[in-house]
């Protein structure tokens, strides 16, 4: 197929950006979206132009590096990551708009590459269990009800790609933060830090300049791993519980 691409080009963090238009031909419907961009980049290099910069790594939907807004949708029209989006989702002759994640907390580095280190700092604020190496009890010492284990897993699936922030009209990181809070807070291993975890992570989330949640549900719709919106509700509950307990101390 033949496609027209309108791609956000921005030289660096300080430069002004704009959409540039390119044509690509000979695209097969079996290609992934990123392979289609590879074709464009090969073309650009040979023409002496700079290829389009975009983050990508595992190309199997798990590392969370790829991050494109395609025709206004984070990760494009399918519910998956950009690397797992295939060109069969598009038609010959289509014009496709490709933009970076947009949020104040995710400044653009170049073209379609953004800085998502704010996510790392949210995890650093409390998204862990303090369990130094060597200090662990026997794994079967504490059984975990299957329902809780499944609940934890469902939230632990988050790949930290940032689609939730990109899709949110407020640039909020509630779904990302809640996924980690819920994963660890439901487990007995995470219980001792249950209150500090949620309070510190939410405080860090706010400090990074993410917006607040207005429960539009855009994040959960965009999430390639299907983290549900109710995850946020749960985190709110954890936060209120922690605030009450902190108030009593």
């Amino acid at each position: 197929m033949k496609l027209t691409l309108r791609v956000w080009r921005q030289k660096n963090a300080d430069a002004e950006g704009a959409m540039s238009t390119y044509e690509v031909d000979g695209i097969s419907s079996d290609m992934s979206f990123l392979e289609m961009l590879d074709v464009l980049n090969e073309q650009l290099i040979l023409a002496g132009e700079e290829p389009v910069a975009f983050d990508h790594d595992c190309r199997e939907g798990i590392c969370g590096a790829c991050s494109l807004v395609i025709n206004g949708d984070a990760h494009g029209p399918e519910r998956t990551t950009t690397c797992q989006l295939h060109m069969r989702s598009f038609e010959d002759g289509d014009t496709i708009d490709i933009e970076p994640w947009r949020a104040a907390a995710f400044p653009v580095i170049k073209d379609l590459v953004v800085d998502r280190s704010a996510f790392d700092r949210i995890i650093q604020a409390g998204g862990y269990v303090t369990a130094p190496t060597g200090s662990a009890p026997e794994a079967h010492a504490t059984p975990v009800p299957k329902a809780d284990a499944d609940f934890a897993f469902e939230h632990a699936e988050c790949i930290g790609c940032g689609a939730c922030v990109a899709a949110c009209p407020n640039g909020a990181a509630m779904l990302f933060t809640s996924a980690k809070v819920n994963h660890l807070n439901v487990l007995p291993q995470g219980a001792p830090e249950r209150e500090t975890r949620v309070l510190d992570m939410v405080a860090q989330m706010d400090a990074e300049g993410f917006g607040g949640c207005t429960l539009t549900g855009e994040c959960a719709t965009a999430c390639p791993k299907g983290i549900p919106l109710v995850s946020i509700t749960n985190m709110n509950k954890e936060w209120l519980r922690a605030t009450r307990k902190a108030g009593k101390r």
Partner: protein
Amino acid sequence: MARTMWDSTVGKKTVMAVSGLIMLLYLVAHMIGNLKIYFGAGEFNHYAHWLRTVGEPFMHYEWTLWLIRVVLIVAVVAHATSAYQLSRRDIKARPSKYVHSRPRASYATRTMRWGGIILGLFLVWHLLDLSTGTVHSGGFQEGHPYQNVVDTFSTWYGDVIYIVAMLALGLHIRHGFWSAAQTLGVGSRARDRALKTIANVLALLLTAGFIAVPVGVMTGVVS
């Protein structure tokens, strides 16, 4: 604890949820009171008078009413301030728009923001119109609320302002009630449907109940 609340986006949302629910509770009572207009001037005016004497002899004249008013003023101010601060923050968090914008389901956010502004403006007009009488059409009579209401809804703009505001109120409650439940952490997958139904029913009842008054005046049932 209050500091943690106010400093956090999640805390401010909690303030909004709680203040919203207080106002919602008040609105339910207000709407029920309003419907007394269908039973004639006597009953309606009597009800208005009772509002001022309720709690006597323990409370002095109008003390209870003022107590409610103070709670409501605090709720309105808290609700509006958090909304304002959160909105500013949200807009700042997303400084550049997507070039390719698509019709988003952010309609909820938009109706909440615009609806909130409409309701705020309405509230000012409503108080100046029927509580103080400052902008009342025709002669405002202290202690004769029945007549005052009929006067207001005998003007076309009175009806338009009121009905538009009540539609906005319905939409606001519809998302707001469900949203408050999420903020307060009482939502769950199992409960989601029930919460949405309650929100819809509340929105519908309140809108219909409030609009019944101008409709009554317009159709001549209330005069």
